[in-house]
C-alpha cells in the first residue's frame, strides 16, 4: 500500500499517548491487565470519539434534513460533515458515501439494488445492471459471510450462476485460476481487500482492472482495510465498497457503502420509505438522488458523527503510520507463532506476503474455544470461532481458529504476552490429554 513502506512505526512514547486515550485499556480482566487482541472484531474507542457522540447528544441532538430550527440545522451540518470526513478518508466524494448500519447492510444494499434492477425497477437507466440466467457472479473462498451470502442469494433470485475463486491448501487465493473464472459472462466480482482470517492483502487495483476488462463490476469488502491501510477507492477503481464504523474506532450501528456516482445515480433503492423520496402519490414515488436515495428512514446520526470523530483521530495519528506499526506487529506475531510447536497459522506466511497485524491459528487437537478460555483467564482477549468464514475454515480442514488482531494501540509487549501465554495454554491442554 502506498506509504506503508516508508512510514515510521509508532514510537513507545506515541503508543503511550494513544493508549491513554482509550479508557477501556485500563480495565483489569480476571485479575490481569487487559490484553486486547480482538481489534479486528471490534475496535475500542478513544475518549475523543466517545466525547464527540456525547457532546452531540447533549447539545445538538435533533432530526436531520428536516425542521427549520437551529438545532436541526446544526445537526444536519454535523451529520453531513461526518460524511465528508469519511469520504475523504477513503478517497471518495461525499455523494458516493451512503450511511448504513454496518458493512453487511451495505453489501446487501448493492445486492438488492441489482436485484431490484433485475426485476425491472429503475427503468432504462438501471437496465445495464440486470442479471439473469447465463450471467455469473464471482466471489472468493476467502470471503466473510457478509460478502458471500448476499451474492449467493442474488444469484438464486435472478437465475444467475454463483462461482468463486478457490484458495490453495495454505489458504492463499488461487489467482492463477482467475483467467478461467472471469469471462464476458461475469457481471460482478466480489472480493475482500484484506482477509479477516489470514490477514493477506489482495491486489485490489489489479483484480479490479481484470474484472473491468471483461465488463464486470467490482464489490470490495473493505472492513479490514479501511481501518488499517491507507485507502483510496478512486485510485483502486472499485465500483462498490463496504466498511463498518466499529472496526475503525467508531461506534456500532454505523457503516458505509461506497458506490461510484454513476452507479448510485442509476440504481434503484434497496430500502424504501421516509427520507428518500421527492414526490409520493398513492400510485408510486420518485426518489431523491444518492446518497439519500439509499438512506430510508431515520438515520444513525450520533453514530455517524462519532465515526467522523474516529476518522479525525486516525488522520491525526496517520493511517500510513498505523499501517507500518501493524505490519511490524504482524511480523512479530507471525514469527513468534511459527516458533511455537504445534501451531499452524492459517494463510500464507512466507516472505513477501503482504499482510496486516492479525493472525489466526489452528492447534491440532486443541479446540479454539478451549484455547480462548485459557487465554481469557490471563486477561488476553482473542477471537475464537470461524470468524464468519466457514467455507475458508472448512477448506483449511478446521471448524474454528484462534485469532489475535492488533491495531494502533497494540504494543509489542501485548503481542509478546500472547506469545508467552499460548505455549502455556497448549501445555495445559496437552497435559490433560
Amino acid at each position, binding site marked *: 500500500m502506498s506509504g506503508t513502506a516508508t512510514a515510521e512505526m509508532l514510537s513507545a512514547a506515541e503508543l503511550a499517548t494513544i493508549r491513554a486515550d482509550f479508557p477501556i485499556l485500563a480495565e483489569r480482566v*480476571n485479575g490481569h491487565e487487559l490484553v486486547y487482541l480482538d481489534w479486528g472484531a471490534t475496535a475500542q474507542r478513544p475518549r475523543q470519539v466517545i466525547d464527540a457522540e456525547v457532546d452531540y447528544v447533549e447539545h445538538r441532538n435533533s432530526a436531520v434534513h428536516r425542521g427549520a430550527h437551529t438545532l436541526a440545522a446544526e445537526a444536519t451540518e454535523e451529520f453531513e460533515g461526518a460524511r465528508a470526513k469519511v469520504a475523504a478518508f477513503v478517497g471518495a466524494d461525499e455523494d458516493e458515501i451512503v450511511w448504513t448500519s454496518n458493512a453487511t447492510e451495505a453489501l446487501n444494499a448493492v445486492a438488492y439494488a441489482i436485484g431490484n434492477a433485475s426485476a425491472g425497477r429503475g427503468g432504462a437507466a438501471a437496465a445495464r445492471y440486470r442479471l439473469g440466467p447465463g450471467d455469473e457472479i464471482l466471489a472468493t473462498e476467502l470471503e466473510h459471510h457478509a460478502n458471500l451470502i448476499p451474492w449467493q442469494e442474488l444469484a438464486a433470485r435472478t437465475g444467475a450462476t454463483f462461482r468463486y475463486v478457490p484458495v490453495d491448501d495454505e489458504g492463499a487465493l488461487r489467482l492463477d485460476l482467475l483467467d478461467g473464472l472471469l469471462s464476458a459472462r461475469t457481471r460482478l466480482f466480489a472480493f475482500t481487500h484484506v482477509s479477516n482470517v489470514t490477514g493477506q492483502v489482495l491486489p485490489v487495483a489489479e483484480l479490479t482492472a481484470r474484472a473491468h476488462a471483461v465488463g464486470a463490476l467490482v464489490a470490495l469488502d473493505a472492513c479490514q482495510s479501511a481501518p488499517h491501510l491507507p485507502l483510496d477507492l478512486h485510485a483502486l477503481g472499485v465500483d462498490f465498497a463496504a466498511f463498518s464504523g466499529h472496526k475503525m474506532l467508531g461506534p456500532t450501528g454505523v457503516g458505509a457503502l461506497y458506490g461510484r456516482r454513476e452507479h448510485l445515480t442509476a440504481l434503484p433503492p434497496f430500502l424504501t420509505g421516509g427520507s428518500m423520496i421527492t414526490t409520493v402519490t398513492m400510485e408510486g414515488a420518485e426518489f431523491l438522488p444518492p446518497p439519500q436515495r439509499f438512506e430510508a428512514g431515520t438515520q444513525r446520526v450520533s453514530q455517524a458523527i462519532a465515526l467522523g470523530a474516529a476518522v479525525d483521530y486516525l488522520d491525526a495519528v496517520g493511517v500510513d503510520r498505523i499501517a507500518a506499526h501493524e505490519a511490524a506487529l504482524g511480523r512479530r506475531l507471525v514469527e513468534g507463532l511459527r516458533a511455537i510447536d504445534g501451531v499452524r497459522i492459517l494463510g500464507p506466511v512466507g516472505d513477501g506476503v503482504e499482510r496486516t497485524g492479525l493472525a489466526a491459528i489452528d492447534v491440532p487437537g486443541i*479446540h*479454539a*474455544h*478451549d484455547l480462548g*478460555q*485459557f487465554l*481469557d*483467564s490471563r486477561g488476553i482477549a482473542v477471537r*475464537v*470461532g*470461524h470468524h464468519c468464514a*466457514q467455507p475458508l*475454515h472448512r477448506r483449511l480442514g478446521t*471448524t*474454528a481458529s484462534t485469532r489475535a488482531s492488533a491495531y494502533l494501540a497494540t504494543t509489542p509487549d501485548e503481542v509478546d504476552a500472547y506469545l508467552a501465554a499460548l505455549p502455556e495454554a497448549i501445555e*495445559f*491442554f496437552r497435559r*490433560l*490429554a
Partner: protein
Amino acid sequence: MNEVESLYQDIIVDHVKHPRRQGLRDGATVESHQLNPTCGDEITLQLVLDGDRIVDAAWTGRGCMVSQSSASILAEQLPGLTAAEAGERIESFRASMRSRGEIPVDEDLLGDAVALEGAAKFVARVKCAMLAWVAAEDALAKR
C-alpha cells in the same frame, strides 16, 4: 484451583479421552443434528426407542472439550430412561446451566454432568455444554 482449571475437571477430561457411545449406527428411531453457529461445534445424537423408553443412544460430533464431554456424559445416561425421565434431566441441567452458577447441578439426578457445573459460570460456554442436551430434546420431540 482457578476458574479455568475448575472448568476442565478430571471427569470432563476422562469423557474427552474415552468418549462413551460415540459413533453413529444403523437403526436409530430418531436423530438430531445441532450446530453452535458461533464456533461451528456440532453434535449428531441418535436414539433407539422402544415405545417411550430409550434403549440405546449414540452420538458423533466435533468441537471443544465442553461440548464433546457433555455429549458423552449425556449419551452414557440416556439408555433405560423414559422420554419423560430424559426430559426431566434435560430441564434440570438447563436450569443449572442458565443460572450462572446459582443452581448447582443435581448430582443425584445427573451423575457425571456435575463436572460441567463450571461451564455455567462462563456465559460463552453454556451453549457448548447444552448442545447435546438440545439434540436429545429435539430428537425426543420427533417421536
